[in-house]
């Protein structure tokens, strides 16, 4: 589990080191974290560390394949603020996971992961609803 904590700590440091919150800087940091977490899924000796690495890896991949996916250029105005807000919030959750891992507080870790999923789903829903308000024909299925 220490490896995961180290990875999260490095990520937090990298985010703090950037002078201002830039989307590309955060996404690069997240991608770097995801690649390292994917390795952990296969090499970690701890089942719990594997579980966490697997979840976070899949979570970050979902972010990139859905929330940051290519979309028509003329509609970027809807996405940009939502994406930035999402990144800001998700960045704030990493220190929390790290501190709960250090304290080995499993219930709290679970709660933070649940918050992450809620944040992801809410962001996707917000964007889709905003689409509809702009006259799109999309519906939430």
């Amino acid at each position, binding site marked *: 589990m220490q490896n995961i904590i180290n990875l999260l700590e490095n990520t937090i440091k990298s985010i703090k080191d950037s002078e201002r919150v830039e989307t590309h800087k955060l996404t690069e940091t997240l991608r770097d974290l995801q690649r390292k977490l994917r*390795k952990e899924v*296969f*090499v970690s000796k701890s089942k719990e560390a594997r579980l966490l690495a697997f979840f976070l890896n899949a979570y970050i991949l979902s972010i990139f394949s859905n929330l940051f996916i290519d*979309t028509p250029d003329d509609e970027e105005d*809807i996405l940009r603020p939502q994406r930035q807000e999402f990144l800001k919030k998700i960045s704030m959750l990493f220190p929390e996971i790290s501190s709960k891992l250090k304290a080995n507080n499993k219930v709290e870790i679970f709660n933070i992961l649940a918050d992450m999923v809620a944040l992801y789903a809410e962001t996707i829903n917000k964007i889709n609803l905003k689409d509809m308000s702009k006259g799109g024909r999309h519906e939430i*299925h």
Partner: protein
Amino acid sequence: MKYIKRELLDPADEFCLKIFKAGLKNSEYVLSNGLPSKDYFDLDEAILGRSENMFETTEEFVKRLVQKVKELDGQHHFDRIAFIDKGGQGPVGLIFLAALIYMTVRKEALIIRPFKELHRSRVKGRPIRSGEKILILSDVATEGNTIFSAAQVIWDFGGKVPCALVFYDREQGAGENLMKKDIELISLRARETLKKNPEIAEKQYDAPKKIKELERPFVFPTLDLIEM
């Protein structure tokens, strides 16, 4: 409306049978819908796996396909052809043929990504205009779920889907299911017809399945590969 099976290829077309012989796999698989299947057809493999006459084979296959698409167009007057991207790999089963097909048919194409969560990202290409008639082109039909999901995206934008053309119909309910949604499923070839060909039946349908493939120990990819 009652579903009536419709296949476009001439049963005597030996050339297309070659493609099916190369693409049909005699083994056991789990399909993307989770169902087990002994009936697997891989079009990309059928094209790329042929080391002899690969270019001629592809060219001939596309010629026949284009002819059939044009015949369907004469009936429905499509505005565009839609390819389906199920998981970010490009048009399912058509990765190597999609551009060739729409360029030769001379119809504007689009890619539908029905399983993306942002609705705006489900269509690649010019936005669908209300009333546009779109032909969905895919490799294999099983129960029709993927085609239906793609059609739903097109309907969301106000487009129309009178029919879908697949290379191979496993005849596991897709035709009937899609007809309930007013989409006619048309195939180049369906399972029961291919089974009537003795050579294909012997190789694909009647032969014992190569289940040994499933008994091989699974080896995780090396870390170098994972990193890539």
